[in-house]
C-alpha cells in the first residue's frame, strides 16, 4: 500500500469503487468509463452514481447492449492513448467478450513485441445467492485467470477494492476486476486520501497458527466468519486473501501454509477446474513437505446455479460448511 494514511472513513464497497474511479478520472483525463446504463443510471447497482454529473457524457458513455463491440472498442481506445474502464454488468456476460478479452486485449502487447499496450480495466461482477438464476450468478474469474497477459483482481473489502481499482486503472496491462454483488453494501474502513494497493500482493486478513484458509472475494468474509466460530473451539485459522489471482503472490500463500501445515481453499467459482484448483495445486506442491493433511477445496457446486432459494443456498460455501471442513481437517469432528 502506498501513501496510506492512518485516518479512515467507513465506506461501502460500492462507494469505495466509485471513489477510486472518480479520483483516477480527476487525476488523468485519459480515463473514461463505458458500458450499459453507466451514466444517468450509474449502473443497476448504482456503483457509478454521480460520475456522469461530474465528468459528463463524454467520459461516462452509455453504450448499446453490445458487449463484444464496446469491449473491443475499449481495447482500441486503450491502444491509442486512453485508459478505458469498461463495464460488463454481470460476470456471466464475459462469455460474449472472451474473444475481445483473451484474443485481443491479452495478446496485443506480446504479439506486437511490446510496442503496443492495452491499459484497459474491465469491471465486472461475480457471486450468487441473489436469486438471479443460472445466467446471472456465475463467478467466472477462472476463465480470465487462465489467459496470459491479463491481470485479475478480486477485492474482498472496501479498502482493498479502492486501492486495487486505482492500481488497475494505472496499470499498463488489461486488468479484469471482479466485484462481488453481495459485497457492494458491505461497509469497511477506507483510508482517507490517496493510496493504492499493488496488484500481486496477498493480504493476511487474520493471523492464526492451526490452519490456513485461502479465500477470495466474498469468501474472505465467509472465512473470517468461520475463523470466528472455530476460534471459540480453539482452532486458530489464518485467513489469507490473494487479492489478485494474476499476478499471484505465491510466497505469502505458501509461507502461511508452511507455518500452519494445513490449508483449505475457498472460492466462489465452480469447484472443478476453478481458481481454487490452482491455489490448491500451488500450496500442495510448494508446501508439500510441511503439510499434515491434504489441501481441501470448497467452491460452488458443479451445477448451474438454480433459482429456487432452497437449492441455490446449497451451491455456495458457507461459514458452517467451511468450519466443518476445517474441523475434519484438524481431526476435531
Amino acid at each position: 500500500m502506498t501513501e496510506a494514511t492512518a485516518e479512515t472513513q467507513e465506506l461501502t464497497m460500492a462507494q469505495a469503487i466509485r471513489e477510486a474511479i472518480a479520483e483516477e478520472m480527476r487525476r488523468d483525463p485519459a480515463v473514461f468509463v463505458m458500458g450499459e446504463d453507466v451514466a444517468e443510471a450509474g449502473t443497476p447497482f448504482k456503483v457509478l452514481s454521480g460520475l456522469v454529473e461530474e465528468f459528463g457524457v463524454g467520459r461516462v458513455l452509455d453504450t448499446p447492449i453490445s458487449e463484444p463491440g464496446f469491449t473491443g472498442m475499449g481495447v482500441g481506445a486503450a491502444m491509442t492513448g486512453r485508459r478505458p474502464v469498461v463495464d460488463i454488468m454481470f460476470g456471466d456476460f464475459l462469455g460474449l467478450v472472451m474473444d475481445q478479452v483473451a484474443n485481443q486485449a491479452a495478446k496485443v502487447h506480446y504479439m506486437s513485441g511490446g510496442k503496443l499496450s492495452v491499459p484497459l480495466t474491465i469491471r465486472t461482477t461475480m457471486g450468487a445467492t441473489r436469486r438471479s438464476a443460472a445466467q446471472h450468478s456465475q463467478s467466472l474469474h477462472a476463465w480470465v485467470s487462465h489467459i496470459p497477459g491479463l491481470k485479475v483482481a478480486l477485492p474482498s473489502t472496501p479498502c482493498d477494492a479502492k486501492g486495487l481499482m486505482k492500481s488497475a486503472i494505472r496499470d499498463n496491462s488489461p486488468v479484469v476486476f471482479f466485484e462481488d454483488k453481495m459485497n457492494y453494501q458491505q461497509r469497511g474502513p477506507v483510508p482517507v486520501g490517496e493510496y493504492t494497493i499493488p496488484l500481486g500482493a496477498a493480504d493476511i486478513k487474520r493471523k492464526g497458527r492451526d490452519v490456513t484458509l485461502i479465500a477470495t472475494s466474498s469468501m474472505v468474509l465467509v472465512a473470517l466468519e468461520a475463523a470466528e466460530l472455530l476460534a471459540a473451539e480453539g482452532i486458530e485459522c489464518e485467513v489469507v486473501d490473494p487479492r489478485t489471482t494474476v499476478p499471484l503472490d505465491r510466497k505469502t500463500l505458501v509461507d502461511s501454509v508452511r507455518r500452519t501445515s494445513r490449508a483449505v481453499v475457498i472460492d466462489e467459482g465452480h469447484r472443478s477446474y476453478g481458481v481454487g484448483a490452482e491455489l490448491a495445486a500451488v500450496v500442495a506442491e510448494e508446501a508439500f513437505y510441511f503439510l499434515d493433511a491434504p489441501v481441501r477445496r470448497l467452491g460452488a457446486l458443479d451445477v448451474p446455479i438454480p433459482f429456487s432459494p432452497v437449492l441455490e443456498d446449497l451451491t455456495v460455501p458457507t461459514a458452517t460448511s467451511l468450519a466443518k471442513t476445517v474441523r475434519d481437517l484438524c481431526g476435531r469432528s
Partner: protein
Amino acid sequence: MSNNQPQAAATSAEVQPDWLAAYRKMVTIRLFEDRVNDLYQRKVMPGLAHLSSGEEAVAVGVCSVLGDQDYITSTHRGHGHCLAKGAAPDRMFAELLGKAAGYCGGKGGSMHIADQERGNLGANAIVGGALGIATGAGLSIKQRGSDQVAVSFIGDGALGQGVLYEVMNMASLWKLPVIYVCENNLYGEYTAGSETVAGSPLDRAGAFGIPATEVDGQDIRAVHAASQQSVERARSGAGPSFLLCSTYRYFGHHVGDVDRGYYRSREEEMFWRTERDPIKLAATWLVADGAADQGLLDQIEQDVGRELDQAVEFAVAAAYPELDQVGTDVFGD
C-alpha cells in the same frame, strides 16, 4: 393444439381468431403481472422479475397464429409470451416462487421459464441469447420437413447484439421459417433506444433480405394480421420475416425499478396507459363491433382474477424442491 390458443391452428388465412379468447389472454397477462408485482412487494417472490404489462397485444397477437407445435423463444420479460403460448398460471407462479411444481421444478425462475409441451423453448436472461436457439429451431424444422414455425421474441435492446445479424443472415440465406418479433418498448433498462440505435431497425432486417414491417404493437388486430402474413410466408418455405412492434412497458425495467423519473417521464407513462392501452383499445372495438358488451368484459376480468388468485394460492402453498434436486438435470439423460 391447445384450447388455450385463441385460434387452434392457423392453417387457413381466412379463419378469424377468437377475439374474446385473445382478449381474455391479454387480461390474464395483465392481472398475472399485477400479482407478480404484489408477490415481490410482499417479499414472497425471491429475486426480481420483469413485467410485461402494457405489451400484451404483441405476445397474444403473435401467438394467436401459432399452434402448440410451433416454437417460440422468449426474453427476460417473458411472462406474457409464456401465457400467450398457453402455459398454466399456477405452474408459472410456482416457478416464480422456486417451487417444485413450477415448469422447471423451480430451477429456472422468472427469467428461464420454459414450457416444452407448448413449444416455448424458454425465456432467456441474456439479451439476444435465444436468437440462435430460435433460428436453430427453424433450421431443425426445415431439415425435418415439418410445417412448424419458430418465433423469436426480442426487445429493442437486442438490436445491439451482433448475433442478431449473424442469425438473420443465415435465416435469410437458408429461407428458414423464423419470425423475429422485436418488442420496441423504447427503452433498454434505463437508456432510451434513441441513444443506442443508429439508422433504421427495419432497414437492418431488410439489408439481410428479410421483409420487415412496422406494427402497432398496441393493436392486437394489427399484430395478428402481420403475424399471420409472416407465418404464412414461413410455412410456405419463403423464409424469415421481421416485425418491429411498437409498444410500452408500464412498470419499471424490473419490479424494483420504481423511481424512474430520470429516464422517462410520468407524462409519457400516462400517455401510453391511457391512450394506447392494448386491452382498453381492444375492449372499445369489441364493444363497438358488438362482439361483447362491457358486462361480459367485466365478467372476464373477474373470472380471470379469481383463477389467478387460485393460481397464486396454489403456488404459495406448493412445496419447495427436494434438496437433492440441486444435483439432478446437470447432464442429459
